[in-house]
């Protein structure tokens, strides 16, 4: 498979890095927010497509501010794209939750795992080496496919649009 083919808010800003995107908490939950467009981006997604449970709290532990900002850009793009699609045509898929790991080399790996395919975003201390991958398998036919590409900030929204379309077609 190839992606090319185929509530209320607590105003306390927990981990602001000075950018307009931040992680906030309220009602025992964490929210990703664009402070300039709070009403739009702070929308809470329906449970079946709320892929952020747990990950935002982990993201607060990222020490490198540049990596942190890049991670938030990716999470916000995922959130916004899902929200926009869901407004047009309600998403009925049950989507897996994201996982975030801070690696020993200080890179951050965001994983989105499904039964037969996996997606990952690797944000590197040298931001220009950041990348994403899509791997899939068919254990019956033994067919594996994979692709890995560098990911620049200007490409994030278009890459995530393609990835979400891929996910919604295959779940």
């Amino acid at each position: 498979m190839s992606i090319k083919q185929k509530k209320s808010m607590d105003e306390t800003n927990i981990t602001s890095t000075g950018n307009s995107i931040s992680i906030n908490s309220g009602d025992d939950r964490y929210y990703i927010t664009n402070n300039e467009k709070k009403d739009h981006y702070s929308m809470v997604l329906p449970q079946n497509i709320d892929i952020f449970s747990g990950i935002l709290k982990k993201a607060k532990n990222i020490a490198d501010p540049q990596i942190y900002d890049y991670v938030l850009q990716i999470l916000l793009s995922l959130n916004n794209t899902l929200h926009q699609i869901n407004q047009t045509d309600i998403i009925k898929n049950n989507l897996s939750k994201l996982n975030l790991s801070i690696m020993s080399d200080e890179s951050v790996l965001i994983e989105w795992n499904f039964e037969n395919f996996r997606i990952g975003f690797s944000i590197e201390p040298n931001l220009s080496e950041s990348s994403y991958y899509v791997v899939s398998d068919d254990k019956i036919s033994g067919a594996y496919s994979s692709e890995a590409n560098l990911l620049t900030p200007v490409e994030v929204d278009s890459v995530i649009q393609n990835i979400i379309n891929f996910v919604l077609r295959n779940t």
Partner: protein
Amino acid sequence: MEFPDKLIRGIANKDFLDLEGRACAALFQFDDVARVDDDYMEASINWFDDEGALTEIFEKRKETGELQFKSGAAILSRQILDILLISHTGKGRLTYERNPEDNNPYHGNLLLVKGLQKSVRVMISGQIAMCVERIMPLENKQSAD
């Protein structure tokens, strides 16, 4: 050299599992420094020759006395891994070995050739994670057969 049907990777903490309990690519990070003799980077495993391989993982302790693999063990199918290897070994990227140690006869390594772009290394870790058949929680030690 003969290898059993399954291999085991210890899970040091729950961050290596996603909320659905699947093994993450992060579990299969390779050492940063490559071996001098053959330029491979290692990711340590145990070969599942018998139940002792699992016991070794579950009972392994750090120098502090703390259990090393508190979140259990991932059991991988060598057959499925071999299918993956076919797509990579042609390029000499990925292989495995036995590497018994004095106190661990089951020990071996997944081996990834050095010099690959980080993006490719991360992708390969994601593929290896897909070879995991089951997760054995520490509190639920039982046969993997």
